C-alpha cells in the first residue's frame, strides 16, 4: 500500500529539492571564489533521495546524514545558513568552525547525529539511538544513509546485523550512486540489487528509483511505519547516479561520458516539475512563487554566512571534554518502575523451544542443497518489496558501466555494457589527495602541467584545461 501524498506535500517535496539544488549551486560558486575552506561534495542528481527519505520522518524521529545528504538536513529543519557557515568554517556555524560540511547535528531539538568521515559507523550508532528510544518509550524511528561503497565496510555489517537481532527501528537508506570515489559499484558489491544484502540479515528491504522523489518518499514512509510498528529495520536501496566527481577537485574523468548523458535525462528535478504539471498540482505562478521564496531565503542566509566572522583561534583548545556544560537527562515516556527491580527481574536462562534441531524446523540446509551459482543467478533477485515505478525504471536502465576497464576477468555480463572510453581507461591515476581549497588547486595545477608535459598530448591537454576554473 502506498501512502497518499497531498498537494501541499507534493509542493513541499519540490521546495526542498529545489532549495537543495540552489543551495549547492551557490556553494559551487563560493568554492570557486575560494570562500569554501575545505572540500565540497555534490549531491547533484541525488536530491530526490535526501528529500524523499527524510520527508517520511516525524519531528521526534532521529536521523544521521552522510556528507551528501544536505537535503535531509534541510527537511529536518536546519537552515541554509547552517550549511553555508559550516562549509565556510565560520564562528556562527553549528560547530563554530570545529568541523565542516554536513558534519553537525543537534541532540535536543532536531534530533540529528553528526556523521564522521569513516563510512558505516553511523549504522551501529543509530541502532543504539533506536534501542534507547524504545527503552525510554519514545516510539521513535531512526534513519541513516550509506553508499554503495560504504556498504563494503565492516561497520555496515556489524551495525545492520545488530539492528536486526535487536529489531531496532532503523531505516537504512542505501544510496547506490554507482561510484565510490573512482571505483564503480561492481567492484564494491557483486550484486545486481544492493537491497539483496538485507537477506543476509533477515530484514525487509525495497529497491526504488532514486530519481523519483514520490517513489522514494512512499517506499520510505512504508519502511518508517513498519519500523514504528516494531517490525525491525528496513533496508531501502535507492538507485541513482553521482553526477559530479567525489568532490569539487575531482573532474570524474573516469566515468564514461555516455553514463552522464543517460542520467542527465533522468534528472529528478525537471522530471518532478513535469510530473507536477501533468498532474495539475501547480501552475507557472506557483512555481515562480516557490522559486522566488527559495532565492530570497538563500540570499539572506548566504549574506549572513559571508558576513560572519571566523572563530577566535583560542577556541581550538576548548571543548574536548564536557566539564559541566551539559546537563544529561533522559526523556522518559514510560514508567521507570518497569525497568527497575522487582519488575525488571527475570529468570536468566535461555530457552530453545525447537532445540536448534535440523529435523524439527529444517532451518539448515546441507551443502548438497545449496543451489549452484549459475542456478542462483538464473533465479534472479526476489528481495523485498519493489515499487512498480522502480521496477519499470530498473528494467529500462542500462547496466552501470564500470569495472571492466582494468581486468579481463570480468563476468560475461560486462560485454552488454557501454564500451569504456579508451583515453579514460589508459589515463594515469589521479593523484589529487583531497579538496582543500587554494593549496590543493595549486597542487592540481602543477600536477596537470607535469602530466601534460610528460604526455605531450596537446589535444587532451586542451580539453582538460577547459575543465579548470
Amino acid at each position, binding site marked *: 500500500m502506498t501512502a497518499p501524498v497531498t498537494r501541499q506535500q507534493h509542493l513541499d517535496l519540490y521546495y526542498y529539492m529545489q532549495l537543495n539544488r540552489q543551495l549547492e549551486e551557490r556553494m559551487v560558486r563560493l568554492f570557486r571564489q575560494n570562500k569554501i575552506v575545505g572540500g565540497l561534495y555534490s549531491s547533484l542528481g541525488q536530491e530526490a533521495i535526501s528529500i524523499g527519505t527524510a520527508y517520511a520522518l516525524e519531528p521526534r524521529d532521529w536521523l544521521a546524514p552522510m556528507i551528501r545528504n544536505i537535503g535531509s538536513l534541510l527537511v529536518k529543519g536546519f537552515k541554509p545558513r547552517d550549511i553555508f557557515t559550516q562549509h565556510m568554517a565560520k564562528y556562527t556555524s*553549528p*560547530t563554530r568552525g*570545529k*568541523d565542516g560540511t554536513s*558534519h*553537525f*547535528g543537534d*541532540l535536543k531539538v532536531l534530533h540529528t*547525529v*553528526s556523521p*564522521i*568521515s*569513516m563510512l558505516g*559507523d553511523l*549504522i*551501529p*550508532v*543509530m*541502532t*543504539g*539511538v*533506536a*534501542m*534507547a*528510544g524504545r*527503552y*525510554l518509550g*519514545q516510539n521513535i524511528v531512526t534513519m541513516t544513509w550509506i553508499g554503495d561503497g560504504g556498504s563494503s565496510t*565492516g*561497520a555496515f555489517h*556489524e*551495525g545492520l*546485523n*545488530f539492528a536486526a*537481532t*535487536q529489531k531496532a527501528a532503523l531505516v537504512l537508506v542505501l544510496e547506490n550512486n554507482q561510484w565510490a570515489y573512482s571505483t564503480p559499484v561492481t567492484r564494491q558489491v557483486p550484486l545486481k540489487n544492493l537491497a539483496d544484502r538485507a537477506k543476509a540479515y533477515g530484514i525487509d528491504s525495497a529497491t526504488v528509483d532514486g530519481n523519483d522523489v514520490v517513489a522514494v518518499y512512499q517506499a520510505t514512509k512504508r519502511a518508517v511505519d513498519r519500523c514504528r510498528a516494531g517490525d525491525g529495520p528496513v533496508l531501502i536501496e535507492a538507485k541513482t547516479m553521482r553526477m559530479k566527481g567525489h568532490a569539487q577537485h575531482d573532474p570524474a574523468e573516469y566515468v564514461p561520458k555516455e553514463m552522464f548523458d543517460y542520467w542527465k535525462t533522468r534528472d529528478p528535478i525537471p522530471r518532478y516539475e513535469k510530473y507536477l504539471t501533468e498532474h495539475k498540482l501547480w501552475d507557472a505562478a506557483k512555481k515562480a512563487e516557490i522559486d522566488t521564496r527559495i532565492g530570497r531565503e538563500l540570499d539572506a542566509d548566504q549574506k549572513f554566512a559571508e558576513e560572519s566572522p571566523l572563530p577566535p583561534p583560542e577556541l581550538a583548545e576548548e*571543548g*574536548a*571534554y*564536557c566539564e*559541566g*556544560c*551539559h546537563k*544529561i*537527562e*533522559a*526523556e522518559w515516556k514510560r514508567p*521507570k518502575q518497569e*525497568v*527497575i*527491580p522487582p519488575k*525488571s*527481574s*527475570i*529468570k*536468566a*536462562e*535461555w530457552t530453545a523451544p525447537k532445540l536448534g534441531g535440523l529435523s524439527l524446523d529444517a532451518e539448515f540446509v546441507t551443502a548438497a542443497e545449496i543451489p549452484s551459482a549459475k542456478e542462483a543467478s538464473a533465479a534472479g533477485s526476489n528481495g523485498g518489496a519493489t515499487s512498480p515505478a522502480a521496477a519499470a525504471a530498473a528494467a529500462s536502465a542500462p547496466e552501470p558501466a564500470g569495472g571492466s576497464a582494468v581486468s579481463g576477468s570480468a563476468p560475461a555480463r560486462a560485454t552488454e555494457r557501454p564500451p569504456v572510453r579508451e583515453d579514460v581507461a589508459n589515463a594515469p591515476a589521479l593523484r589529487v589527495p583531497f579538496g582543500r581549497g587554494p593549496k590543493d588547486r595549486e597542487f592540481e595545477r602543477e600536477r596537470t602541467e607535469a602530466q601534460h608535459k610528460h604526455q605531450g598530448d596537446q589535444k587532451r591537454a586542451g580539453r582538460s584545461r577547459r575543465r579548470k576554473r
Partner: protein
Amino acid sequence: MAAITMLEGIRQAIFEEMDRDPSVVALGEDIGVYGGAFKVTEGLLARFGPERVIDTPISETAIVGAACGMSYLGLRPIAEMQFIDFIACCFNQVTNFVAKSHYRWGAPVPMVLRGPSGGGVHGGPFHSANPEMYFVHTPGLKVIYPSTVYDAKGLLKSAIRDNNPVLFFEHKFLYRRVKEEIPAGDYAVPIGKAAVRRQGRDLTIISYAAMAHTSIEAAELLAKEGIEAEVIDLRTLLPLDRETILNSLKKTNKLLVVHEDTRTGGIAGEIAALVCESAFEELDGPIMRVTAPDTPVPYSPPLEERFLPNVEKVVATARELAKY
C-alpha cells in the same frame, strides 16, 4: 565486614549504579545469562532484565557504536569488551566517533567502556595486552586503570556518572588476587587524582595497575637496604595528575616509572617529558623506567616471565638510581 575481591568490587559498582539510576544499562558479549567471561556481570540480567542487560553479537564496533547512540538519548551505557585486546576491533568507533563527539559538535557521550586487561595469566598475545596508551593519546577520552578494590569500585562509579566517555581497564591478574575490606554504602573516587601509596625520601616510583603492587613490594625490599622509596599509584592515566607527580619529585629528586605496558610510547615517556619541562632542576639523576620490552605478550610461562616487569627488576633499577 568481609574482604572482597576487585572483581566483586567492580560488580558491586555496576549493580549499585544500575539500582540507583535506571538510565544506566549494560551491553557486551556473553554478559547476560553467562554473566561475562570473568563473571563480573553475574546476576545482572536476573536483576535488571534483558532491556538493561544486553547480550550482543560478536561485534565490537556495534557495541561501542550502539552505546554511543544510547548515550545521545541520555542513557549511561556500560559497554564491556570481553577482553580489552578486542578494543582494537572498534578503534575507529572509539577514537573517531566517540572521542571527538563533544569537541566537534558539542554532543557529550556519557559511556563507560570497560574490560579485562594485562598479562601474567598466560593469555598469550591476544588476551594479555595493555592498550591504554592508544587512548591516552586520544583527546576526549578519560582513561582509568585502578590497582585496589576500593579504587576499582569508587572509580567505576565516578566513570559511570561522568559526562565523558571513560575507558576503564581492569587488570585481570588482580581480579581475584587482591582482597580488601571496603566501606559499606555509596562512595566514589575522583577521576584524575593519583594516590601516594608509600611515603619515602630517596626516590619516587610511579606506577599503576598490577605494577603498583610490584612497586610497593619492591619499595619494602629497598627499605631493608636503607633506600626509602615513595610509591605513587596513578589510578587515572588521562587526565594525568601532574601535581602529585611533581610534588613527590620535589621531595625525592629521583624518578623511576614502572609499567607493564611496552617501553616505547608508554606513559613513562610522557612523565619524563613532563618532569623535564616543569621541574628539570629538581632532578638529581636520570629518569629511569622498568617496562615490558617492545614485543607482543608471549604465551609460554618462561617467556611471559621474562616479558613482565617484576620486583627484582624494579629493585635492581632503583638501586642504580639511588646511587646518583
